[in-house]
């Protein structure tokens, strides 16, 4: 079991690196223009929605991995 926890920590670390890359690749290039003073607001809003979606997705995946790694203990 102890080994599995180390594996889970390592997978979580990989997910952070990958998630960061996804954020940089999807959010950083976004630039909304042509809406005057609302452009910056729209830009932030869209970035926030994508970020929240990615965080929820990340939590969902980590939850599935948790169930997969610790399935025996959680079932018991």
């Amino acid at each position: 079991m102890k080994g599995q926890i180390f594996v889970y920590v390592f997978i979580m670390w990989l997910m952070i690196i990958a998630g960061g890359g996804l954020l940089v690749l999807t959010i950083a290039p976004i630039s909304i223009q042509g809406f005057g003073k609302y452009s910056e607001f729209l830009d932030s809003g869209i970035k926030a929605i994508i970020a929240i979606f990615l965080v929820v997705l990340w939590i969902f995946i980590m939850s599935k991995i948790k169930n997969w790694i610790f399935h025996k203990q959680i079932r018991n």
Partner: protein
Amino acid sequence: MMFDKTIAAIVVSAIAFVTVYAITPILIKNLEKRKLVVKDYNRIGGAMVARPGGPSILAGILVSEFVLYAFFSSVDVLAIILTTFLAFLVGLADDRKVLGGWFKPLALAATAIPIILLGAHGTHLDFPLFGSVHIPELYLALIVLMIPITGNTVNSIDVLNGVASGFMTIASFALTISLFIVHHYDIAIASLPLGFVSLAFYKYHKFPSRIFPGDSGALTLGAMYGTIAIVGHVEIIAAVALLPAVINSFLFLSSVKRIVEHRQLKSNPVEHTEDFKLKATEHKDAPVTLVRLILANGPMTEKEVGFTIFKLAIFSAALAIITAFMTGIKI
């Protein structure tokens, strides 16, 4: 200038360590005299242990950070002082009177206000290998979220003798090393008291504990850690060093499915064997926690569980330091 910084680093580290090392025994006597003690349920006979140790932790942090402020008059250090102090007050209120599950996250979110008002933050989030993302408005939300997360995460790992202080010693020094790696020397020096305060407190908190940090101690350590992560622009690295505690909170929340205090739970995740070792509970409705998973293979002593958590902390600290090196590389 480099010589000044080296001197400052040595001075604040020594002050932080000596303050907590000297004050904590006095605090223990004072708390015991005022009957501010709680039962240690994991000890044979249920010894009464002084609580909270937050005041001595805060004293070590404040004295050393004020000395550092006298050296460099940095707005970042001021933000660390103010946010840490406010988090201590939130914790102390919770130590005195049991507050609702939502109170702490909301109150801790408010403690982040000095960081924003002083402008002691950036607008970028730096990721290893991929560069950074500019999120000026989102970053403000991140600041408000970060302090409750780190505060409550450290608080949630405070389950066994010495674990919170020992874990924070390892995570804090990993954060300091990482700050040096990414060349944020001033914040690296400002982070040194956190590690040395945790180390000095561990002397009295380790098994068998003479004092518990309480919410005031755990939230003080967690909030200071979060503030350093923000003012030092090492949010991702800080999260990596804290991973075992994050996993503990994640396991707990995903099994309980709501924000709730440990003391409000009906079933404890850990039970005792006849020889007073810890064992995982068989109750279906008990939450899944890091300690419960560690004990899944069989009973262990409290000390053994603590050392397993420290091994996980060292593993995460190594990953955090690797992440710091990776932050300087862009693919």
